[in-house]
């Protein structure tokens, strides 16, 4: 299956053999292909971590910034040029740990971006410390007696904050993950997809079969626009529901609220300073 986002020469991918990231990137590439997104109109944004290397392997523009800071970057990119499709891909540590405050802000701002969180319940790149989503009891070289903190539930927080689009996926099912990603990208507003995936090197507990037996897909009758149902589903922790859990299209996007776009759609780079107007306003206000 070739994609317009493939490279002429395949890059040397820095992931471990068997890592769930490979499946996620497949799902992403084919979602982008399915949606006919043009290579020069998309920007991939990421932080730092193993997941955050994803943009390096998608043949498109990318902004691979600081650990934890993918969301402010993506928000600003979309705001500066709303014509771009902006997809954020980063890890659970990056997004919910270092970047937790920006996650909260993104939920409130509602930029029209898609946030794919590669959630392996561990810090991969730094060699296996607990992440905010690590389950209780998970032992690591830092959490030597096991994690004792309540795991972060991004889906529940997002629904509680009345977010725009909230979904959970599992890398093991590329096809279904792709479909969820497509919905997320086409949804207007901030779309969160928490994508569970195995880290074969540092998470021996939450492995492929663990995910298989601890998740289930929401059935077709499930109505993601029903908030109270979504709240209930979102806090389920025994078995994690997969699929689109909540959607809310009541809010305008961040960009729609910004001064420049109230008059026209032109991205910032096409606008010019009206020097005459500036002169007039200075004379009027400061004389």
């Amino acid at each position: 299956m070739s994609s317009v986002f493939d490279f002429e020469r395949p890059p040397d991918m820095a992931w471990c053999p068997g890592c769930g990231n490979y499946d996620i990137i497949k799902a992403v590439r084919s979602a982008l292909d399915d949606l006919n997104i043009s290579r020069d109109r998309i920007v991939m944004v990421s932080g730092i971590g193993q997941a955050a290397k994803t943009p390096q392997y998608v043949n498109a523009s990318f902004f691979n910034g600081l650990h934890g800071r993918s969301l402010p970057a993506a928000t600003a990119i979309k705001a500066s040029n709303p014509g771009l499709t902006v997809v954020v891909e980063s890890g659970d540590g990056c997004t919910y740990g270092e970047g937790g405050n920006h996650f909260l802000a993104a939920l409130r701002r509602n930029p029209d971006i898609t946030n794919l969180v590669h959630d392996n319940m561990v810090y991969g790149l730094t060699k296996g410390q607990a992440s905010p989503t690590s389950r209780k009891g998970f032992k690591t070289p830092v959490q030597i007696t096991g994690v004792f903190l309540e795991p972060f539930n991004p889906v529940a927080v997002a629904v509680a904050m009345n977010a725009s689009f909230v979904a959970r996926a599992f890398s093991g099912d590329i096809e279904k993950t792709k479909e969820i990603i497509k919905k997320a990208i086409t949804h207007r507003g901030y779309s969160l997809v928490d994508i569970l995936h195995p880290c074969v090197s540092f998470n021996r507990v939450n492995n492929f079969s663990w995910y298989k037996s601890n998740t289930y897909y929401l059935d077709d009758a499930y109505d993601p626009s029903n908030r109270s149902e979504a709240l209930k589903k979102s806090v389920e922790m025994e078995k994690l529901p997969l699929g689109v859990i909540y959607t809310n299209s009541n809010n305008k996007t961040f960009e729609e609220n910004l001064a420049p776009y109230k008059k026209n759609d032109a991205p910032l780079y096409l606008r010019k300073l009206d020097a005459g107007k500036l002169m007039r306003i200075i004379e009027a206000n400061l004389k």
Partner: protein
Amino acid sequence: MKNIKTDLSIVLSGEAGQGIQTLDRLLMKMFKFSGRHVFSFSEFMSRIRGGNNSTEIRVSSKRADSFLDRIDVFVPFGHGAMARFHERITGDTVIIGDPAFIDDRYRGGGYTVVEIPLSEIAKEIGGKTFLNLVVMGLFAGLFGINEEGVQGQIRAQFSRVAADVIEKNIEALRKGIEAGREIARSGNIKNLPEASPDAMKELLINGAETITLGGIAGGCNFVSSYPMSPSTDVLVNFAKYSEDFDIIVEQAEDEISAVNMAIASWYAGGRAMVTTSGGGFALMTEGLSLAGAIESPLVIHVGQRPGPATGMPTRTEQGDLLFAIYAGHGEFPRIIYAPGNYSQGFDLTRKAFHMADKYQVPVILLTDQYFLDSYGTVPGMEIDNSMSENIITETYSGYRRYQVTESGVSPRGIPGYGNGIVCLDSDEHDEGGYITEDFAVRVVQVNKRMRKLQSMGPDSIPPDLYGPDDFLCLIVSWGSTLNGILEAIKASGRSDIALLHYSQVYPLHGDTEKYLKKARFTAIVENNYTSQFGSLIRMHTGFEFDRKILKYNGMPFSVEELAEEFKKFA
């Protein structure tokens, strides 16, 4: 009683929330319209109500634009309004105000006190809110300013207020004018500064506004910031102009977000800036380093206040210079400007956008509370599109963001403009922007980045020499101390002193040594404890100053204390 010929210094003092700043603006405008040069510096506590705030307004027939110790007229606005000023209130000061607000120690012996029941007058008209207008009238009367003109100013300014309120304002004004004329007649205050026609044409501005307007003139269209004194006004001003100039103004969840947004906006074709103070800047240093790594343009305004930590939120200091120069891990070029007056505030902010874009480096504007919160006049501003244009390239298939060039500057593409792709990575990267672990590529990219320090040379702003070319004593300073030093040199009566003032503090201009070597005696003036700029100069030239004049109590230098120091120069 002192004979003031050209220059009157008025201090209004009261509690936070009493509207002293509003009165300050009203008076400034009135005096300017009357043809006087004006300057005012507000100092206030970090609270919303109560405490003690003051403003010093200088009214003058020539430009007089720095902080003075001398108080010619003092108006207290409440109990306890005088306590903090006791040392500055002298026999030459005329104290005008409500009997209740004038401390007993000023009564009888040595002080000139003019008691006017200001509060009562206001109350008769309708309440405390009219006090400001009474005082405004008082100064209009004292200066003999055209009454209709002042009324016009009030009517224009309060145009959205109910008609009967306006009339009461006018009445308050009139009452004040009567009282003012009375004082004028009493002869207590003689030889008030005369009008000079050029003052009328000038623009009335404060430091914060020069940064905002300079930013707009530099094409700024994206501002992401988190409020922090004394830089918040810049953010507020941008919001005020956002609809007129299509500027995205976003209050970020924190300073980290603010700086990352600004960088990413440049990436996507915006011209972005953040405004903050030292503590917020501290949180931005990782972002600053990101800008260095990905060679992003970026403009950061840092309004300094005394540190460390929260320090004195509403006071002034020049304590963050070396921090600004070395902030951010790793090595990368940057530019730092520190405006000394309003023109420089405007010009340098404008230029900051252009330089950031031209060399793809972060540019820091280092101001301080004194600069930002003082009002004054400026003849005009240069506005054209020369500094606001995007310096970007239409990309093509095969475009490489970090193409190695002789200057170190690679053509900057943005996503969505052209057929190419634009790849940025905070890791060390190859020309294409992809992560590399190749040691040779690393060296090539470091060299490329650092080469810009040389390329930037021709655009470097040399220090300004004020005073005689054949100076014997040379004062060096940077940023907001400019006007005060110039006035103090005059006041010192010394004609052998020149000032070398830096508005670009980093990279340090190459002429520095030349000037310093010429001087018989050198001194540096800085609003900090350790003489940071002096240290920088030594680092780059080996040169050490004979004298360091430093102040770090939270207040700017006064003309008098500087003049005192200058007189002692060997």
